[in-house]
């Protein structure tokens, strides 16, 4: 190998590694086998260290098939098998299985399924594209995308030469307010467009099916996801009324599902992407065979309103302070009325309800969220009190339920302390 000259050895090393990992891959594939035995699935793997794993049919909670782009081209599927208590990762994953074999696996664990399973479902809901477009247009993720855009631009700005930034500044301050508003509107439009596309990619072809107590959800335009779970694993039901959806009387029905990792891109699982608010209760009772309490919630004490408004206003202390440095920050105060309005809504919408079996919490961050929890599903319940709340005898209640990501917590702020303690002291019915 000569000095300074291009040597083939440089190329050979990575090629060698690639070849080696390719060989290892082949061998792992050869040694990876699975077989069915009565009520068990046995998987053997390992080239030198042999592993054998036995999975009992009865222990399996759900079987999920997932198809990425590569999977679809090669007509393969990945299989994830979950057992009770596997919170952190799927107990059992096969990254590529022939599609019909994948379906055989699924059928093996999901008893009594015949070939044409499509007709076997006793309930089927397919979200029409009309509904999906409406949902996409009103999905709240526009805020998220705007902030990503803002971050991106602020980063790009740093790397531009001074000459360019100065020119931009000059242009920005010289051009009329009309141009700036237009520019802002244009950015919002782009963000909206991106959010619509993103929503359609994730929720396109949304289909929900039920067979006895098993619910299956298919969704996704590019990467198709299928999730199957038993009805009794549903821990809580949420009605989420986004800011853009609430005026049109539409909402999303979400659920927390105990122990499942296949919806990692979502903490909660959407059962229905968009339904008429008035029909939401009917949908839940058809699908989950349980009736959610419809009673009106008990609102907060009137005195709590001040605390909500105060919190909405306090975040503007910072811009006022910054305006001493640069007067431009004072414009942030234009958002004060919006924030105050949101704060008032948060107060107005917050509320609780309980009867002997269920608890309902309602709160708003941006979207108005109503959570229905059966009391015996509550993992633990907390009442917290800050020094300011103590002074006024208020408290915050936090309810923890099991979810795909471990736990979900729902809180209502500034309840009367006595009320919060009473809610927390619910008696679990001795069964």
């Amino acid at each position, binding site marked *: 190998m000569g000095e300074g000259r291009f040597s083939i050895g440089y190329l050979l090393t990575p090629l060698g590694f690639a070849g080696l990992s390719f060989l290892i891959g082949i061998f792992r594939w050869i040694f990876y086998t699975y077989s069915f035995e009565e009520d068990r699935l046995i998987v053997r793997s390992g080239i030198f260290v042999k592993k054998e794993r036995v999975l009992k049919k009865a222990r399996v909670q759900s079987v999920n098939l997932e198809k990425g782009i590569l999977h679809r081209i090669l007509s393969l599927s990945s299989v994830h098998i979950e057992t009770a208590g596997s919170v952190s990762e799927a107990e059992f994953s096969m990254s590529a299985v022939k599609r019909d074999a994948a379906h055989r696996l699924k059928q093996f664990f999901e008893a009594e399924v015949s070939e044409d399973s499509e007709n076997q479902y006793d309930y089927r809901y397919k979200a029409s594209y009309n509904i999906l477009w409406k949902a996409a247009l009103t999905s709240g993720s526009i805020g998220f995308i705007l902030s990503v855009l803002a971050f991106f631009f602020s980063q790009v700005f740093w790397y531009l030469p001074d000459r360019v930034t100065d020119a931009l500044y000059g242009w920005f301050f010289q051009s009329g307010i009309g141009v700036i508003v237009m520019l802002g509107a244009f950015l919002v439009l782009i963000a909206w467009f991106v959010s619509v596309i993103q929503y359609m990619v994730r929720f396109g072809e949304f289909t929900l099916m039920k067979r006895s107590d098993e619910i299956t959800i298919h969704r996704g335009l590019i990467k198709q996801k299928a999730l199957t779970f038993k009805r009794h694993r549903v821990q809580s039901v949420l009605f989420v009324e986004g800011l853009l959806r609430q005026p049109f009387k539409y909402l999303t029905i979400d659920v927390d599902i105990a122990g499942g990792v296949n919806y990692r891109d979502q903490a909660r699982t959407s059962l229905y992407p968009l339904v008429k608010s008035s029909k939401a209760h009917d949908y839940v009772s058809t699908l989950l065979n349980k009736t959610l309490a419809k009673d009106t919630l008990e609102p907060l004490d009137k005195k709590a309103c001040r605390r909500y408004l105060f919190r909405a206003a306090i975040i503007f202390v910072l811009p006022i302070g910054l305006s001493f440095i640069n007067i431009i920050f004072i414009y942030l105060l234009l958002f004060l009325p919006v924030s105050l309005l949101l704060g008032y809504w948060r107060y107005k919408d917050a509320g609780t309800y309980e009867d002997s079996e269920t608890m309902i919490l309602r709160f708003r961050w941006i979207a108005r969220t109503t959570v229905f929890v059966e009391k015996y599903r509550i*993992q*633990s319940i*907390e009442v917290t*009190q800050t020094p300011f709340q103590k002074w006024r005898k208020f408290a915050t209640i936090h309810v923890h339920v099991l979810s795909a990501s471990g736990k979900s917590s729902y809180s209502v702020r500034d309840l009367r302390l006595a009320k919060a303690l009473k809610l927390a002291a619910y008696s*679990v019915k001795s069964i």
Partner: protein
Amino acid sequence: MTTQLEQRIDPTAKNVWRINAFIEFFIFTLVIIGYLVANWLWWSLPNWPAFIVFGFVMGLLIFNLFILPTIRLRIWSYQFEEDAVLIQSGLFIIKRTRVPMARIQHIDTEHGPVMRLYKLASLTITTAGTVHKIPALKQETAHQLAAEISVIAKVRDDDV
């Protein structure tokens, strides 16, 4: 929530914390002495950082001996009810947690050598999604509770 729950942390826990504080102090002091010796033998770094750190360690010791145990004792309280465990803690932000018995998956009791000296244990209650801790209680009580909870078996067939 100015009211406390029925049970308090066992007062002898103060001694456990104090002994632990001493052990911690001892280890820190050893490290500092090690630095000084090494400095004297091989390095020629300034000595004063060691004295400043020692000042901090002294301060920490005094805090851990006289102030922290009293605060910790005062802010923790708990209560075992027929169907739930209640735990309250927090100095400024007070937090009261209620863990239903039926939701408890397992209970861990843990005692280090110092805690064993005083027949104390810490108790960790785990549900399917959350973890809760009582820092010090009598070993008897801890074991009794652990036994009680195993009696209250899972009650519904659709439990997770």
